C-alpha cells in the first residue's frame, strides 16, 4: 500500500500493540488527539486507554515511569513531543534507561522505544526542529535510529520494539507527509545497525540519514547530470551503532566521502564518521572528507532556517571541491 511515513509508523505501532500484549504507548497528546502529528491516531480507540494513554506534561516523568514499566516487563513505546525536549529528560534517558542493564549486570533490562519528531524546514517554533542524535554518541546504551522513508520507518520501528535494549527513534518532521511509498500492511522488520546503499556509485560516497538522504540523492542526480560524477549514496538508517563496514567498503571503493546532516557540525555524526574513515580507510582516501551540516550555532528561527539547512546546492559545492571540478 502507498503510505506516508505517518501512516507507516501508525501501522507499525498498531501491529506491535496487536502482536504483543506487553506493548504500551504513551506520551503527551497521543491519545484522543492521536499525537500532534497523528502518528498514534486511532490507537487509543483500538487498544484502549489502559495501553494507549496521555500523560501529564512531564518528559522526565514519561521516561522515568517508562523505565519502571520496562523493568517490570512491559514494552513501552513513548513519545517525546519534539526531540528538542529530550534535554528535559536527559538524565532519565542517558543515566537511567541506557544504564539499567549495565548497573544491574543484566539482572534487569530496559526494552524501551523513545520516539521523537525532529528536523527542520517546516517553520516550527524554537526547539521543534533541532537534531539531537549525536548527543547520544557520548552516552552509550541507546541505539539511535533515523529512518528516511515510510518503508524503512515501519520496518525499523518493528525492530526497535523487539530490541531488548532502549532505542531512540527519531522521525523527521518534513518526511512525515512529504511523500508516499509502497509499504506492506503486514508486519516486517529491518535490522538495526545496517546501512542501506540507496544508490551505487564509484566516484564519491555520500553518507546521510533522515531527510538528508533525499538531499543527497538530489545532489547525486545533479552531479551525474552536470558533471558526470558517479555518486554512491548511503542511508545510514541507524546512526548508532554505525554500520562501519558499509562505510569503509564504500570509501574504499570511491576514495572520497561527504557526510550530510542537519545537526551542528562540531561533534556531529559527521565527525565520528570522519574518524571512522580515518581509522579504517586512511590509505584509500584521496581527498579530505566533506561535512555538509548545520552550522555551529543554535537552530535559527523559521525566517532563517533555509539558510541553515544542508541543501543539494551545498552538497554540490562540497562535491565540486572534492572532485576538483
Amino acid at each position: 500500500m502507498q503510505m506516508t511515513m505517518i501512516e507507516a509508523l501508525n501501522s507499525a505501532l498498531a501491529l506491535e500493540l496487536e502482536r504483543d500484549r506487553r506493548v504500551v504507548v504513551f506520551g503527551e497528546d497521543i491519545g484522543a488527539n492521536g499525537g500532534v502529528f497523528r502518528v498514534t491516531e486511532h490507537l487509543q480507540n483500538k487498544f484502549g486507554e489502559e495501553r494507549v494513554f496521555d500523560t501529564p506534561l512531564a518528559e522526565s516523568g514519561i521516561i522515568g515511569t517508562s523505565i519502571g514499566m520496562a523493568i517490570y516487563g512491559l514494552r513501552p513505546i513513548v513519545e517525546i513531543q519534539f526531540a528538542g525536549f529530550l534535554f528535559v529528560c536527559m538524565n532519565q534517558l542517558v543515566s537511567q534507561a541506557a544504564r539499567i542493564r549495565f548497573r544491574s549486570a543484566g539482572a534487569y533490562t530496559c526494552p524501551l522505544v523513545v520516539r521523537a519528531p525532529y528536523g527542520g524546514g517546516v517553520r516550527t517554533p524554537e526547539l521543534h526542529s533541532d537534531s539531537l542524535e549525536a548527543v547520544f554518541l557520548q552516552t552509550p546504551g541507546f541505539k539511535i535510529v533515523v529512518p528516511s522513508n515510510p518503508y524503512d520507518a515501519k520496518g525499523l520501528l518493528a525492530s526497535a520494539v523487539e530490541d531488548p535494549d532502549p532505542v531512540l527513534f527519531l522521525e523527521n518532521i518534513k518526511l512525515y507527509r512529504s511523500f508516499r511509498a509502497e509499504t506492506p500492511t503486514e508486519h516486517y522488520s529491518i535490522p538495526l545497525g545496517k546501512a542501506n546503499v540507496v544508490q551505487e556509485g564509484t566516484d564519491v560516497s555520500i553518507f546521510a540519514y533522515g531527510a538528508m538522504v533525499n538531499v543527497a540523492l538530489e545532489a547525486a542526480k545533479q552531479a551525474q547530470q552536470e558533471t558526470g560524477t558517479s555518486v554512491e549514496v548511503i542511508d545510514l538508517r541507524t546512526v548508532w551503532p554505525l554500520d562501519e563496514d558499509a562505510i569503509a567498503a564504500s570509501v574504499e571503493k570511491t576514495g572520497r566521502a561527504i557526510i550530510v546532516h542537519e545537526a551542528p557540525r562540531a561533534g556531529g555524526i559527521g565527525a565520528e564518521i570522519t574518524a571512522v574513515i580515518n581509522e579504517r580507510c586512511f590509505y584509500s582516501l584521496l581527498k579530505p572528507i566533506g561535512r555538509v551540516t548545520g552550522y555551529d550555532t543554535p537552530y535559527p528561527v523559521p525566517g532563517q532556517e533555509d539558510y541553515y539547512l544542508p541543501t543539494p546546492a551545498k552538497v554540490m559545492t562540497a562535491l565540486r571541491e572534492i572532485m576538483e571540478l
Partner: protein
Amino acid sequence: MAIQTDPGLVPYQILDAGGNLVGKMPGISAERMLSLYRSMQVGRVFSNKIIALQRQGRATTFGSLVGQEATAVGLAAPMQPQDWLATSYREIASLIVKGVPIPTLAYSFRGFTPENWPAETHCLPVQIVIGTQMLHAVGLAMAAKIAGDPAVAVGVCGDGATSEGDFNEALNFAGVFQAPVVLVVQNNGWAISVPRSKQSAASTFAARGEGFGVPARLVDGNDILAVYDTMSKAIENARAGNGPTLVETLTYRIGAHTTADDPTRYRDAAEVEAWRARDPIARFQKFLIARDLLAEQRVQQLIEEVEEEINEAVRIAESMPPMAPDSFFDYVAATLSPRQQAQRADLLRYINQVIQ
C-alpha cells in the same frame, strides 16, 4: 483567602459572569479600568489577526489567547517598569501591557527574532520549553533581592506546566529564598489535548503552594478586577519583602491550542460554549457600561480603533526588513570563533552564488 482544596469552594471573584460586582472594588481609577479593557481588546484582536495571517501563510505557528485576556492583562498591569516578566507563548497580551511594541511582536510572528527587543521592558522573550521560565523568574527575583532593588519578578505558565519538574523546583526555590516573585498558573483547562483533570489529581493548582511553603491564591481568571487585585497585592507583598505568592487563575482556552491544532478531535463544543458565556471581555464590558464608564455605542468604535492599531503594527512589521540570512551567527556569543566566522563566510558565499 483560603487555599482552595474543596472543589465546592469558588475562586476569588469581584465581578461575576454577568459583570455584577460581587466583591470589594480594588482601588483603581476609571481611566485605569478603561485602559485594562482596551488592553484586553488589543490582546484579542492581536491574537485573531496573527491567526488570520498564519492562515494566509504570512505568520508562523501562533497560540490563541482568546478567552484569557483578563488573566494576561490583569497579571501584567500592576507591574512596575523595573519588574521582570517571564512568560510562555500564551501571554502576548501581558508583554504588550508591559511595554513591548506590537510591531516587534508581530515581526517575531513573521518568523524572525526582533533585533530591537526592548530590554528595558524587562520582558523575557516567550518561552517555548514548558515550565522552564518559572525558574528564570525566581532567579530574577533572587537577583533583585541580592541587589537590594525594589523589583519583583512575575513568572507565568499554564496548567500543563505544573507537571514539569522545573515548575516545582521554582516553587521550592521561591519559598526557600523568600524570593520577591509571583508565580502565576494560567489554568485554561487544557494542555493541548490533555484536560486539567488528567494533569493532576489535586483539586487545584493553588494547593501546590502549601507543600512548598508558598502562600497561594485561587482567582477567577476571567475576572479582570479579581486578577488585577490579586496580582497587585501579591506583587506589592513581594516588593515589601514578604516573599512569593502562587496564583492560580481559572480561565479557558476558547480557541485551538495553536494554529497547528484541531480541538474538535478531543473536546466538546458544549464545553467551549459554556465558557464563552463567561467571556472576560464581555463581562468587564457589561460592568463598565452598567457603571457608565463606557458608552455602549463606543464599544464598536473602540474595537475598530484597536483593529486599526493592530493592522498598522502588522504593516510596520511587514515593512521591516527580514533578518539578514546570516545574522543568526551574531547571537551565538559576544565574539565568534574563527571556525564560526569561516562558516559564516561559507554561508554568505552560498547565498551569493547559489541563492541570488
